[in-house]
């Protein structure tokens, strides 16, 4: 029974992490209809920046996290303004090719600068080890991830639902033409959202170094996971991807524990079945625009 809870706990932490990593993609891919396969590269950038700050510059872990967010967002907005925005109206094939190209470049560049081996971020002592909670082993680091990601999720939901920016974004996504007719600066809204999504990915990358492992091939290895979250979760709201990432996290952890030999087999099968059953995702809109 306690192993079940431990698996559940680890799975939730893993899923939360995936959500933070992928929710930026949910916006660009799901809402802006842009196939961004390079999303993992932003996560990797955030992770490496955090690692350099903590390991080489001696920054405390918790002050390096916001910087991972900010720098990934800065990279995101720079790329969006210079490159990405030219591709919004192009075919999906062009978008796929372009973003695969970016991913390849980022992989080789990081390999060149930082070396090809996996890196670790030095954690503060308070986050190491685990404690017992009614017999269930709770990892401190994973608990912190759940707390941070949970807060972020609530904040995101509130921003989307309650603030002026949230309604602008929803309007811009629903009908860009009508939205710009109402005086909403659609490109600006998209650029800001894109940057924010990249920032979240960067933060997720920094947090995931401990759990998922950070090496130059991170964007390729986890690309499929991000895409699963978005396609399975659908794009109508933030809750769809959130539930999908929890499902994926728990499924993956449980799969690795109970049927270790099947590897990622379980996840891919579930994904294909879901996509055949509901091509727009579990929680997606019935018909795309």
């Amino acid at each position, binding site marked *: 029974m306690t192993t079940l809870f431990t698996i559940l706990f680890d799975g939730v932490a893993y899923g939360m992490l995936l959500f933070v990593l992928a929710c930026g993609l949910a916006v660009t*891919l799901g809402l802006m209809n842009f*196939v961004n396969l390079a999303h993992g590269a932003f996560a990797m950038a955030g992770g490496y920046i955090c690692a350099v700050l903590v390991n080489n510059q001696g920054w405390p872990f918790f002050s390096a996290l916001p910087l991972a967010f900010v720098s990934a967002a800065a990279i995101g907005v720079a790329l969006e303004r210079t*490159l990405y925005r*030219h*591709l919004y109206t*192009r075919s*999906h*094939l*062009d978008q*796929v*090719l*372009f973003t*695969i*190209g*970016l*991913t*390849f*470049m*980022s*992989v*080789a*560049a990081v*390999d*060149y600068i930082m070396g090809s081996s996996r890196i670790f971020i030095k954690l503060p002592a308070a986050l190491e080890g685990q404690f017992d909670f009614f017999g269930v082993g709770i990892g401190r680091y994973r608990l912190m991830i759940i707390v941070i990601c949970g807060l972020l999720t609530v904040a995101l939901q509130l921003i989307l639902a309650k603030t002026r920016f949230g309604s602008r974004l929803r309007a811009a996504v629903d009908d860009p033409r009508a939205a710009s007719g109402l005086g909403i600066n659609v490109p600006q809204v998209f650029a800001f959202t894109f940057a924010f999504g990249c920032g979240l990915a960067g933060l997720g990358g920094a947090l995931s170094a401990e759990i998922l492992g950070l090496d130059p091939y991170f964007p*390729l290895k986890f*690309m*499929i996971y991000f*895409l*699963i979250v978005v*396609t399975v979760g659908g794009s109508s709201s933030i809750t769809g991807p959130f539930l999908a990432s929890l499902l994926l996290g728990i499924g993956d952890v449980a799969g690795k524990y109970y049927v270790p*030999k*099947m*590897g*990622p*087999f379980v996840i*891919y*099968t579930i*994904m*294909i079945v879901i*996509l*055949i059953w509901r*091509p727009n995702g579990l929680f997606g809109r019935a018909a*795309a625009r």
Partner: protein
Amino acid sequence: MTAVSDVSSHAIARARWRPAEIVFWVLALSCAFLFPSRYLIMTDILRLALFTLSLDLILGYAGIVSLGHAAFFGVGAYSAGLLALHGIINEPVIALVVAGLVAMVLGFLTSFLVIRGVDLTRLMVTLGIALLLEALAERFSNITGGTDGLQGIEMQPILGMFAFDMFGKTGFFYSLIVLFLLFLLARRIVNSPFGLSLRAIKNNPLRASAIGVPVNRRLIAIYTVAAFYAGIAGALFTQTTALASLDVFAFERSADLMLVLVIGGTGYLYGGLIGAVVFKMLQELFQTITPQYWLFWIGLVLVVMVLVGRERIHRWVLWGPNLIIRQVFGRKAGVAVPESDAP
């Protein structure tokens, strides 16, 4: 002139062999005698060309974006490897066809999943199938040899006469003949009414179904054929290198394949062939400059191609050859056209 005869005369005119095409194949054959020390890399190019041809059939002609075409390549490769390893079918040509048929069956079965949904779902499903097969191959490592790959494959002589030699001469001619035959078949397919209906589907599926084209059945058919081609390419890979390992399913293989096709140009059969030559040369070049980081330059090529515009680049590249063709054969001669300008 009625509409029907207009269409058919148009199709016949398109299907006619052009001088440039004959020159292309003569050049391909003469490469064998010009560079006798480079058979291995040339065989590599031929295999890649066949594989790209397969992707062109579904992407260039039917508009299905696939990120997991390596699935069929891998199935073909492992089928050929297992057939040879266990001595089930010793004759390489028959084994090649059987491996292609195995991939074809898989293509037929998965095509039902692929025709559903929009671009994004297709991307995910094709990618998922390739990853699934990779996971399966890893799981059943007692059959596939796991990460070590199939070891100790020994190929029998082709048709019992031509043994594979260590310089790859036999392998090269074998691949060239297979490529040429399959190219002829593909050429026949895309210029047939069936091929024309595929183009109609690619341009506008809704309109195509409105004029009576059975969209889903056509897509299933071409996807199955493309899987056959990819399976043959994979089997050629195993037969000429006597090797099959897990990386035949790798995502990088599918991604590279897209790059090859895009370099060459989608929607005309020579795109894949030209793209394979250019890609391998680029790869050689980058690998000699930076052995470890050539991935960066490949990525850069992709980014620049998309930003500049694929059509524009092709028009620049084709300007020179077309000028020569016009000078030699007169203004009326057929010239190579990029996809955007194709009538």
